[in-house]
């Protein structure tokens, strides 16, 4: 749960966790905080310890965000397992999140 200020495009997640997420946020906004806490709660509930979240603050790393085509924030990328999924919003709509991440059978 460390913040990554600079991250190259090709950089791979450092951990071997099954569920790997990258969360693009915009500074300390309410939605940024909500998104992180919603994700954290969700991961704890469904993936216990087998997950990894890295946060990218687009205010600090706009170039990376440009390269990734980030338009709305917060934006969550599920990098693993594949396929890569993109979830936009502060993740407060749990039903959408569950459907999207396919956690019904996870």
């Amino acid at each position, binding site marked *: 749960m460390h913040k990554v200020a600079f991250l190259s495009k090709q950089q791979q997640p450092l951990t071997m966790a099954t569920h790997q997420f990258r969360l*693009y*946020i*915009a*500074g300390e*906004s309410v*939605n940024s905080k*909500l*998104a992180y806490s*919603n994700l954290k709660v969700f991961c704890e509930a469904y993936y216990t310890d087998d997950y990894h979240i890295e946060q990218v603050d*687009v*205010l600090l790393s*706009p*170039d990376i*965000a*440009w390269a990734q*085509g*980030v*338009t*709305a*924030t*917060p*934006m969550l990328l599920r990098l693993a397992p594949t396929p890569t*999924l*993109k*979830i*936009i*919003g*502060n*993740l*407060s*709509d*749990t039903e*959408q*999140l569950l*459907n*999207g*991440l396919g956690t019904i059978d996870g």
Partner: protein
Amino acid sequence: MPTSSTLNKTLTGIRGLDEITYGGLPQGRCSLLSGGPGCGKTVLALQILVNGAKQGEPGVFVAFEEDAARIVINAATFGWDLPDLQNKELFFLDGKPRPEDIWSGDFELTGLLAILKAKADQIGAKRIVFDSIDVLLSLLDNPKAERRELFRLNDWLVSNGMTGIVTCKNNDSGLSGLDYKDFMQYMVDCVIDLTHEMDDRVAHRSLRVVKYRGSGFYSGEVTLLLGEHGAEIIAFPESSHDQIASNIRISSGVPRLDSMLGGGYYKGSAVLLSGAPGTSKSSLCGMFILAACERGEACLYVSFDESVSEIVRNLKSININLAPYVESGLLHIESIRSSLAGTEEQVGNLRKLIEQYKPSCFVIDPLSAIVHSEGDSRRRMPEKILTLTKASGITLLCTSLLGNNNGGDTLNEETGIQISAVADTWIHISYQILGGERNRALSIIKSRGSEHSNQVRELVIDKLGITLADVYQADGEVLMGTARWQKEQDELAAEQLILANVEYKRRVIELAQDEVNAQVLILQVNLAVKQKELDLLMATESTRLYHLGLNREELWNKRSGDDSHALVLDESNNA
């Protein structure tokens, strides 16, 4: 932050748009382009960006509705050199929501704006387009949050001194949710409305500036053309009203028509020739063009009916030989299929031709061919073309099928295009059927600013060209064709009869004069004879008296001594 107190404008580089906004969009402010699907929002916005990029104002295009890649491909047809500009002066950000994306809860533009700010600083961007912002923000599904983000966007633009263009759809469909246009038009500094309607299966796009804070603008609706080189606007330049009307007359090519018009057409005016099919409108066009070519003026002949070779051949048959001028390049004849494009495309075509050939005389034959519909374009189109020609001082002669007059002389404006109102001179040719003949009658319905004949003339067309002949009024009917010829012959015969009569009488009187003169001569001879007789008589008498004197003296001498008394008696005996 560079929010200046005075309003600066930035040129869009789009023809017509800078004119109607009196100098372009507000610099460092936000402008809204709103309109339904297919009305040209994206093209217009991108073109403004491209024009900026070419003039050293780099720009960013944020695409929410279409793939950025697709936009680039689509724009390639306009020849804007996008690949050259891309990633140097022009950047695209693909913000199109994907169907596989998952939307969960509230989101905001803060991150996007931070990214754009960094990019803009990096490349020195001055212009930025948010194309179809509603596509992204409507996913918030929360009008309050949507409004919040729009405010955020506008504030960001203003505080960064970027010239922003936001496009959005009109919420005409009555769907629930935020009406973006309605909301944003209060917020932004400039609002431009685009519409797209179909006139009888032909697209017509138009544009209107609705609002421009701190600036005047032309508030009328103007036509937006999406042509070969992108968007352009056909606006009525207000200056066109101030243009100095020419007093120069140019020949119609038919001398008699020139005199009917008081010297010919005004240079730079618009002339309408109307009439039923076959009333030799095209031939009059040919005469006009020929006369112009002979004066050495560049001419453009656009035909929607015939091919170039047909026009040249047909006109040659009536002694109008245009071929040399076509070869020398003085005359360009363009044949356009009327069915291929909509009215606005045709106007675009005409504009291109005018720019290419810079004619001083321009014929469109027939103008009515490019108006397909009953819709508004009927009204607009002639105005558009006249805007083109009047601005350049081109003399326009256009023909129109009008008035299917079966014997009558009806000018049915309902079926005609509405050019008659805007044309300066209107000449109508109708058929007159009389005595089993169909003849052409030409009359001038109106001619602004000049005296013109109210007379109907018969238009006579033969292998020597077109001439105008007088028509005769007889028993309440207008005589033309053979009847006119007959009448002419009758009049000629009557005239000749009168002449002959006069000649006869003159001769008779001359004869009488001669007779009298002869008599005078005889009398004068007689007089001279009598005079001679008189002279002779007098001469004889004087001789006699002389001799008488001599004899008396001789006798006196012989009777010497005789008294004078006896001599007197003797003398009286001899007498």
